[in-house]
Each structure stands twice: as structure tokens, then as C-alpha cells.
């Protein structure tokens, strides 16, 4: 096994649901989750899941050299996003999109995808990626 099984398991709620903490005092979402609000210092935070929010693309990068385990997803597109409701900034992969279709401000939504796999026989790692909301990008239909 190349990838740690306990680590994947321990982080499953971050991978599957973008587990975060929302500050009861200032309302900001701390992602990754923190027990002390990094914006106001409050220790009153509640569980929050960012997978319920759509987001917009702020910026992105296209990565051609693929790290181990990602060879079949070349090129990888990683975006800086801001969620629409709580204005939380996150970095996440984009999917179901071609490089030429990406633009600043495009609205995307979270979907569960296979992010990587541990060779033929090991674990499949699932996590949230973002794709354009249904109906927002075109088709190449003749």
C-alpha cells in the first residue's frame, strides 16, 4: 500500500463532505476545521459541512506533470473557490470541465468523485471535486 489507510479513514468527513467548523460568534467558516476561530479567536464553533454550498471560481491552475496515483486524470485542474453562502475560500479539483471552458466567476457545485487509487488492489479514495452547475456550460453537439 502506498497510501495510509488510517489517514484516509480519519479524514473521511473532510474528503466526503468538506467538514468544517462555523464560528458561533463571528459566523465565519473555518476550513480546515479548527477548535479556535482563526478570525476572531472564539472557542464557540459548531460542525459545518461545505458540501451544501455552491461556489464560484476565483482562480485556477492546470497541472500537467501528474503526481503518483493521478496519472489517468492528467491534466489536473485545481481551483481557488469561494462558496456562495458563507464566502469560504477553498482549494479543490475541478471535474467534468475542459481547460478551455474554465472562466473566472463560473459557478460550480460539489460532487463526490474518485480522487486517486492505491494501484490495482488497494483502496479507492473518494473526495469532493467541483463541476460546473448543470446547464452552465455548453455542448459540442453537431
Amino acid at each position, binding site marked *: 500500500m502506498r497510501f495510509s489507510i488510517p489517514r484516509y479513514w480519519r479524514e*473521511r*468527513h473532510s474528503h*466526503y*463532505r468538506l467538514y468544517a467548523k462555523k464560528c458561533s460568534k463571528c459566523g465565519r467558516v473555518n476550513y480546515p476545521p479548527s477548535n479556535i476561530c482563526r478570525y476572531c479567536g472564539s472557542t464557540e464553533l459548531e460542525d459545518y*459541512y461545505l458540501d451544501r454550498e455552491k461556489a464560484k471560481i476565483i482562480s485556477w491552475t492546470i497541472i500537467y506533470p501528474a503526481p503518483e496515483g493521478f*496519472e*489517468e*486524470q492528467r491534466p489536473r485542474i485545481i481551483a481557488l473557490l469561494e462558496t456562495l453562502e458563507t464566502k469560504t475560500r477553498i482549494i479543490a479539483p475541478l*471535474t*467534468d470541465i*475542459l481547460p478551455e471552458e474554465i472562466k473566472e466567476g463560473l459557478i460550480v457545485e460539489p*460532487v*463526490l*468523485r*474518485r*480522487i486517486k487509487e492505491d*494501484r*490495482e488492489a488497494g483502496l*479507492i479514495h*473518494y473526495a469532493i*471535486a467541483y463541476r460546473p452547475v*448543470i*446547464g452552465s456550460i455548453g*455542448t*459540442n*453537439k*453537431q
Partner: protein
Amino acid sequence: MRPETSVGIIGWGSYIPRWRLPLSEIAKLWGFAPETPRGLNVVEKAVAGRDEDAVTMGWEAARNALLRAGIDPKEIGAVWFGTESKPYAVKPSATIIAEALGITPDTMATDLEFACRAGSEALRISIGAVASGLVKYALVIGSDTAQANPGDILEFTASSAATALITGPAREAAAVFEASYTYVTDTPDFWRRAHQPYPLHGEGFTGEPAYFHHIVSAVKGLLEQTGLKVDDFDYAVFHQPNGKYPLAVAKRLGFPKEKVLPGLVTPYIGNSYNSSALIGLSRVLDIAKPGQRILLAPFGSGAGSDAYSIVVTDKIIEKQDKAPRVDDYLNRKYLIDYATYAKFRGIITRIR
């Protein structure tokens, strides 16, 4: 009072991948007659991307069903996942979806297998579980990234999609069950042995003794049991391995084409196996009106068929726009070539 009448569909939802392979690509590469796709009445097939599988597609269909159900995921007491393309041979897919949707840990969860009708068997089981009070809500998913031996006639139709239904108390339902009936025999029309990458089938044998005999028997059983007639139904949704069989079986049972076409999705995306009939139902629920009656008849090789009578309630209207409709996914498409399809579906062998 039949147990079905206390149970209904609280939420429904489907998912179709963005990528479509025109069937002309398959005909060209493998030297089939150019009119082969027309003979099957299928134009394109949906292809799951490299980062998709039955679990990820089932997750999105289930998320859409949850949006329509408007319930707390923790209230779901069973997650039943019907597929014949499990990402893991051993390790439940249902637990991944249940965890990712916030349903765990106080729930049942398992994967079912019966070729294309495992999801439908799950639906019948869920009716029993809800009617008995064992669970309040059950999440039933049919999802497949169907495999086919490259160059086999099956490759024209084997496609990818998912559909999820949340069943629960009839008083909350968008559509209630009226009756259901199952007909199974040991008929070897289609199978895949352990460790084999692709299924085999009995060519023409998949038609008469398998598809037609089982669906006709299940539907006739349902009609006999309920006293309902063909005319009592506004829609008829059958398992759709290609675009021709559902119309042929409808004709044999006396259903006019107009009642079948709204739930006929295969011509646009191919046969999505465990989602095949269920996505037809999903598309009908997207547009159905209160009081309408739907016949649903999935089929699975090996072989068996279920027939359901489902009556739409006035709660359907408020739910129809709460999630993307099947047609929204049908319209979201990007045509790919055979090489891209081969890469996406893992047909190209690499050392990893």
C-alpha cells in the same frame, strides 16, 4: 389492504455523466454495419468519466432524491445499493454513499446483485421494511457503469447512469405504491463469471425466454392481482436494454407507444443497467401530474422482472423542481471519441 398502499416515493433523483459516445464510433472501429445503432434505436451512450464509478454516480442520484425528499438524512434507516459494477468486489458501496450523505451510523446498508434488477429488488424490499415499521425511510439506488466486451454487440448499449428513490410513509409521498409483483426463474441469458472483466450473453436468447417472458409474466401477474387494466395506466416504463425492446413488449401487452415514450431514456444514453427502468420512472415523475398511474417493470438477467403500480399524489408538484430533472442531465452532454471512452472506462491496459 395490501402493504404497498402504506408506502410511497418521498424523493427521486437521477444522474447521467456528461460524456457521450456516438454509437457510430463503435460501428466504425469494430466494422459493424453503419445502420446497427439505428436497428437498436440508440444514438449515443453515456460514459462515466475517469473519476466516476457506480458509487459516485449513485451518490449524486441519491443527493438529488434527498433534495426532493426534504428529510434529515439521519432519518433514513436503510441504504440499499443495486449494481453489477461495484468498485470493490468485497467492501460495501452502500456504506461509502451512506457516510458521504451523512446517513451513517444508525442505518442498514448493503449492496444487492441481480444483474439489472438488483435495485428493483431493493425497492420491493424497502416497501416491506417501510410498511412493517422497521424503518421510516429507505434509500434505494440503482447505479451502473455497465461493462461490455469491446467489439461485442453489447458495447453499443452498455452505458453509465444512476437513479435513487427514497421510500417512506404514503402520507408524505409524491407517488404511492398500489401493488407490486415479482416473477423470477433460472434463465441463463446473461452472466459474468468471477474475475472476468466482461459479461457474456446468449445473443437472441436474451429476448424471448428472458426479457419478454419475464416482463410479460410480471405485468400480467400484477394486472390479475389488482384487477387493473392496461387502460388504467397513464405511463408504462419497462427495462430498456435498447430502444426497441420496451416498445415491443408494450405492444405485446397492449400499451400504446405514447404511454411508453416519456419514460424511454435508452435511445439517448444507452442501457444503464440497474438505472435503466428506474431512470425511466424518474423522468416520468419529473413531469407526472397528481392522480396519474404509472406501470413500472424492471427486468434483470438470470432472470426476473418486477411490476409495480404507482399512483401520483398532489405532493409531486412541489418536489419536481427541487433537484435537476433527467432532461437537464440529458441536455448536459459532450461528445467524445472511442479513444477517450476507452481511457475513461479503463479498456486500455496500463501497468499501475
